[in-house]
């Protein structure tokens, strides 16, 4: 079992070395994967609620209008 774990560790190390040798220098930045559109941006539930907060915070509104559901679309 211990030998198996060691083998796994060495295989992972070899994979890392291979990745570094093949692609690391060409690809400096790791691609950012899709995480869901409602994460990160604090979306208000409606334009009216956005207006209320915009007045309070003295910020303009960003209104994103699309056909479909932002939670499901690739925007």
């Amino acid at each position, binding site marked *: 079992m211990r030998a198996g774990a060691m083998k796994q560790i060495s295989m992972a190390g070899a994979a890392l070395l291979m990745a570094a040798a093949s692609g690391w220098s060409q690809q400096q930045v790791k691609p950012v994967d899709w995480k869901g559109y409602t994460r990160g941006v604090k979306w208000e539930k409606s334009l009216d609620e956005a207006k209320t907060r915009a007045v309070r915070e003295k*910020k303009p509104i960003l209104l994103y209008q699309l056909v479909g559901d932002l939670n499901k679309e690739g925007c």
Partner: protein
Amino acid sequence: MTFSDPQVAEYVNKNFVAAWFNRGPGFFDNDLSTERWIFSGSLEAYPTKNICTFFMTPGGKVFDYVAGSYAPELFLKVLKSAVELRRALFDESLALKEGGLEAARTLHETRAMTWAIEREKVQKAHSGDGWKRIMSDFRPAAYRGQIHQHNAGCLSSLESGYDYLARLHERWSRLKELPDLDQVRYAYLWGNTFTEESAQSTPVAGDDSKKEPDPLASGRPRPASVDDTVPKSAMQLGTRGVRLSTGLPDVLNLSGGR
């Protein structure tokens, strides 16, 4: 994909209050093949009439908008341009400043010309390895298991985006007053006709950006050469031959400086 980018999300949260609105069901809802097709071929810029991002005051006055979807790097420039317009137009309480409209017109005029120059740079990069320099500003991206590595083919997408942005700002440069949201919500300038509208969706009126004049053909003096070696300060001159009244920095970094 754009709104899940941490930099975009942080910038949106810092400078705007965000809301999204579904103008109707789409017949391509959840159709990953369509999304993958756009992600693969038009990640950098896809100025479709299907989508529009409006920048507006709490009172409902729109001071900027952009149709379509964009890679995070390009969308950040759109966002920064909107923030610059907000500062030119409004005071801290978002009330219209005296001379705000004139300052906004000048900003739009300059943006129209500089986006057109960016488009020209892309057009000249189609031969050889020119695409590598242009695309070095864009990170690779992944979407639901698909990876987009930038290549020479991406120039076409970027060119369509820059062309749209140039003509959009050209139209905004003729601004007489800020429109209400209802005036432009379903009647905005777009760059291509792709739409997911179904019979139940509120349609968007046909307003093709190709019908707008090309800023480079306007006869106005160019703010700078397309040469990247031109000093940044040269880009801060408005095309009316005067220095921008806002005195704001070139936040779009369209002059190519890093």
